[in-house]
């Protein structure tokens, strides 16, 4: 049996072809049309695997674009999908921190991969991928470059988490001659503190970091430092939601899932 999970996020669309294990996966930018992005990323994995759509038994869609996907069998939120995906990869209860393009989520999962509690940012972009993207642009950088800056710098204090105010703050810090890497370290710490406040004073034992934000090593270090725990990043942190969707599709068609 073959099933597919598709996660259309605000920034990128991800798909996983699953046959009891991850067979192939793909990641594409979402662009302006979530429906087309979903269709294209599906076409890409089918193409990679040399399969046709008819050979796929079940497709579960997730992510903010799930409502736009007219070719899926079921839509499930990314919160439930992340929980299933990470539980499949780790086999453990724990806390997931997911930093995507528009949203930051903290999800608490039990040993069966069920969501026990979750928190998601309000419509404000503070602490999201979008926040870092705007700051990167203000510094003339690409958001992907933020994570590769040197580790041992003194983070400058960023006082505002409001994207608009923080942008002016970054610009004035640059004008004042503060080094870029210190500003970036400061931004990472600010995002990490924001995430910490979403944990509502509970100290998680294990933290898995997912979403596009998890590809930023500097941000991972800042989270580990602020939370005082080890922060693990899956091999491919962007596809864990699509993986969870695939697992739900798999189980929906009667498949049993062994942990990875």
């Amino acid at each position, binding site marked *: 049996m073959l099933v597919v999970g598709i996660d259309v996020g605000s920034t990128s669309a991800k798909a996983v072809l699953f046959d009891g294990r991850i067979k192939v996966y793909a990641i594409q930018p979402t662009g302006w049309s979530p429906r087309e992005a979903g269709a294209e990323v599906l076409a890409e994995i089918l193409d990679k695997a040399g399969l046709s759509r008819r050979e796929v038994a079940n497709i579960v869609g997730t992510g*903010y674009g799930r*409502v736009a996907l007219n070719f899926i069998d079921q839509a*499930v*939120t*990314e*919160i*439930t999908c992340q929980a299933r995906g990470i539980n499949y990869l780790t086999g453990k209860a724990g806390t997931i921190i997911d930093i995507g393009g*528009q*949203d930051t989520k903290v999800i608490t999962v039990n040993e069966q991969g*069920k*969501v*026990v509690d*979750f928190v*998601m940012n*309000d*419509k404000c972009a503070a602490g999201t991928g979008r926040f870092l993207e705007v700051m990167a642009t203000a510094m003339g950088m690409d958001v992907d470059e933020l994570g590769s800056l040197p580790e041992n710098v003194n983070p400058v204090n960023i006082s505002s988490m409001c994207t608009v105010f923080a942008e002016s703050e970054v610009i004035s810090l640059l004008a004042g001659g503060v080094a870029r890497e210190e500003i970036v370290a400061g931004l990472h710490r600010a995002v990490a503190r924001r995430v910490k406040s979403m944990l509502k004073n509970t100290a998680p034992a294990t933290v898995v970091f997912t979403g596009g934000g998890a590809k930023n090593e500097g941000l991972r270090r800042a989270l580990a430092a602020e939370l005082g725990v080890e922060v693990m990043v899956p091999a491919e942190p962007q596809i864990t939601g699509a993986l969870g969707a695939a697992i739900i599709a798999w189980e929906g068609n009667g498949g049993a899932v062994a942990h990875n």
Partner: protein
Amino acid sequence: MSDTYREMWRELNMDLEKHDVFLGTLPVAFGEVFLRQENRPAGMAYFDNALAEAHGGRIQEILAGKKAGRMVAGTFCVFAPEELIFAVDGISIGLCGGAQFTVPTGEQVLPRNLCPLIKSAMGFKLDRICPYFQAVDFLIGETTCDGKKKTWEILNEYVPTYVMELPQKKGTADLTLWEGEIHRLKEEIEHRSGREITADRLASGIKMANARRDALARLYRARWADPVPISGKDALLISQLAFFDDPERFTAQVNSLCDELEDRIARGEGVARKGAPRILVTGTPMALPYWKLHHLVETSGAVIVGEETCTGTRYFAGRVAEDGRTVEEQVKDLARRLTAINCACFTPNKERVEDILRLVRDARADGVIYFSLQFCQPFGVEGRLVERALQEAGVPVLRLESDYSEEDVAQLKTRIEAFLEMIAS
């Protein structure tokens, strides 16, 4: 819209062009949110029409009353003792605002980081698109929160606004203060209406308000059934209209709807499948035409089976004793209602948690959504205590904060759906 109405709005000094734009958005929203529901009770027709005529027929009626010498008072809170208004055969209108449309205008005179309910209400007055605001003789504000308290001072520049001091605790001294405030309002109403409030007149005012409370309580009890005989959206609409409609007619209509709902319950008929996830909403009021949360929840496969809000159970809480023989006794009874309404403006407010837990049990709710309007300090802060108490009782709870705009709908939907998935698993 008929020319008669336009003429009436012109006489009320309304901004006709802006009003057209505002009204133009409503039929679309109403059709989308309400008329697409399946198997709606036939008794909803009255309320659909009441909403359709909210700026038309109902205003005509109020203006006719006004011409005949009836006083028209606007209120903003479930604590306003409407019984005093009824006692002089006055017309009482609840004026809280629930539309994003008027928020930007409200922000011209109020800080942006103030709750949308206050900004919207202020905007309705400044924009001159609310015929109720234009028709009232005066407003009765109260000191439930700092935002409202200070807003009355500004609103008073546009329409006479009388302020009652609502205590923040429920001790003996607080009850005495509130009793004094009700006496003071009684004098104000007597002065404004030119009618004396006698024990007989007040007794009938109390009966009228109680009858409406009883009818709403009955409606809310019907929602405990599974399958639920009426949607949360429809029940919310009825609660919202309670603030505008003629109380006696409204009560009769709610009761006849309840007859229908009770028949449905006996037949096991509902608007959602038996076993559909059941949600209790608690938090800040949802003033007309705010239906966003209910619409999101009920288009995600769940039903809302109760609201512990001012446009819900808090509105009809605190039935007033009907056996007071003197005005003194009756005012004491009216003041005692204070202790039965567990608003976050009180400290401490532990009874609210008890109310919520009882409602969860009675309405067989699977989870609670704690909804707070942005920048509402009392309900925002109290959320932590309620959330913890619910978690300790093993009741799943989702906290949401929002305003009247549509920009966060996708995010809210994700959270609501994830919450429902969490409950179902």
